[in-house]
């Protein structure tokens, strides 16, 4: 990592207060950083805290029921302590986000042109006409055919893939320094996924924005990311450069994730799965959170929470048994 990252998350903890005063530990002591222009993949299964982390960066978590501590430093600001007004100035401008659900993320009552120019006018000001021209240009950049005509259409006239392109255009409206993409391809079918990923790669090369790509799809990570952080039950369990993670994973959960990708060249009898269940996050276990499902578990694993240990340059894992190669051979 470079000396001064664009965004640096320190010891982020997020707890949700439920209706019957039940507390859920959604994120527990997450440290992350992304350098200018880099792409970080944030990987994990549903409910591991990856989306919640991204919403915390954007300041979009419901305030009444959420308790957040730690620090999110972005370009001199601590986003957790920034006033609403300043946060509003950053959001949509230098920080932007693409959501998982293109079908419901656009407002059905306004044209897509309205919704894109709104962002431009909010952060850049200028004339309505200028903003409209920029919106057309953005739609062209995300490869929407005949943008001059499409700009006046309502979202219901567009397909899911087109809507996600509009969302991307909207996110790019003010040339953000950091783009958070929360499962941008999950709701789309496979051919569209490839197109959207291709588009994101192209735009990344053109804009130089840093990207945090949240996904549960390691295939997507392999294609787009420079570095990967794997989350499990609210913690980062492993972080490594992308090639290293795929060639030499050092956390049993990562190994399990990689093993559960179906492959055409190895026809297995059954799809590989990770045995067991995610721990109940209302009462997280004291030791390693993966212990109950881990094939390499020791007595010590269940006693204390394992620290993140460095196992290679830029490669850390939260496993006391690393390096794992020694165990298998």
């Amino acid at each position: 990592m470079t000396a001064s990252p664009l965004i640096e998350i320190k010891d982020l903890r997020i707890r949700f207060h439920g209706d019957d005063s039940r507390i859920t530990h959604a994120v527990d002591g997450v440290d992350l950083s992304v350098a200018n222009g880099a792409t970080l993949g944030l990987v994990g299964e549903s409910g591991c805290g990856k989306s919640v982390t991204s919403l915390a960066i954007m300041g979009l978590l419901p305030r009444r029921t959420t308790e957040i501590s730690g620090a999110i430093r972005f370009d001199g600001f601590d986003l957790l302590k920034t006033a609403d007004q300043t946060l509003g100035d950053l959001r949509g401008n230098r920080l932007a986000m693409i959501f998982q659900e293109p079908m419901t993320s656009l407002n059905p009552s306004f044209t897509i042109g309205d919704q894109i120019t709104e962002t431009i006018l909010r952060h850049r000001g200028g004339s309505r006409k200028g903003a409209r021209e920029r919106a057309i240009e953005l739609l062209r950049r995300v490869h929407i055919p005949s943008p001059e005509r499409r700009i006046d259409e309502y979202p219901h006239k567009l397909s899911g893939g087109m809507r996600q392109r509009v969302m991307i255009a909207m996110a790019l409206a003010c040339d953000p320094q950091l783009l958070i993409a929360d499962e941008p391809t999950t709701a789309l079918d496979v051919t569209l996924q490839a197109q959207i990923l291709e588009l994101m790669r192209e735009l990344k090369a053109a804009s130089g924005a840093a990207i945090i790509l949240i996904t549960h799809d390691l295939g997507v990570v392999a294609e787009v990311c420079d570095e990967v952080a794997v989350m499990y039950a609210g913690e980062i369990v492993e972080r490594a450069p992308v090639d290293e993670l795929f060639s030499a994973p050092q956390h049993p959960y990562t190994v399990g994730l990689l093993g559960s990708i179906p492959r055409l060249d190895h026809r297995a009898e059954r799809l590989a799965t990770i045995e067991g269940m995610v721990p109940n996050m209302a009462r997280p276990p004291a030791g390693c959170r993966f212990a109950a499902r881990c094939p390499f578990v020791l007595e010590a694993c269940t006693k204390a929470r394992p620290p993140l240990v460095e196992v290679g340059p830029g490669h850390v894992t939260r496993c006391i048994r690393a390096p794992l190669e020694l165990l298998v051979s």
Partner: protein
Amino acid sequence: MLNFLARRLAQIVPTLFFVSVLIFSLQQLLPGDPALVMAGEERDPNVIEQIRHQYRLDRPVPVQYAYWIKGVLSGDFGESLRNKMPVRELIAQKLPVTLQLGSMAIIIAFLIGIPAGIIAAVKKGTAWDYGANFFALWGISTPNFWLGIMLIFLFSIELGWLPASGYVPLTENWRASLAATIMPAFVLGNAIAAVLMRHTRSAMLQVLESDYVRTARAKGLSERTVILKHAMRNALTPIITLGALELGTLLSGAVLTEQIFSIPGFGKLIVDAVFNRDYAVVQGVVLVTATIYITLNLVADVAYILVNPRLRG
């Protein structure tokens, strides 16, 4: 859109026909003989017979209906049995009074109900929300006549700010007219405000949870823009329809309220007509009311399409 409008207008014709038949037949079931009422003290069988003949009460019911509907179609609703005035004239005289009252009531209802609903949703779970809900419960459960009497007691008798009864046409003196109608309009609008508030609140709560509201926040828009533009536009679409339909129920609510405030409107006209067995008036008033209600339904449908881009096509 034009297609839709044509189709809806075509549906209105059979509906109105059915309503007119219903009104006419129900009338026949009412006890009392209008000829006897008109003959008054004089019980001379010859006079009564003559009245029967004059008003075609001696003809079969379908024939009576045919005569009536023929007149209605040419704008002639017949003549009041009581004061011999043409029914059309009576309606023309009383309808504007009730329309003024109804419009003021619906304006009051929207001005109170919608902001209260939005505030309650945005400040869910706070004192504001509980306050608005309490107000709504109070509004729905307070009887019109009781509220009317209490208002008269407070503002007319104790404070002497507003007249307790009577009516001044808007064209004659608008200040006096508003002063005379503000209390009954509030009484009428109050219950509707409560209904609108409850619906606005739940629609807003749903919309505020939606993905596109999150998108709007992610764009850095102010909370004000997020609520008043992105959320409200979607939440209010069903409320517009509801408002138009509630305007119809106002007409029935007016019956009681006009009695309390002695306002010479439609409600008072129909109550008097029913008690006097003034058939022609009852028929005319009910038919006009039904027509207004059906028209409002149509307006609500059109408004719903106009504000909803998905239906505009």
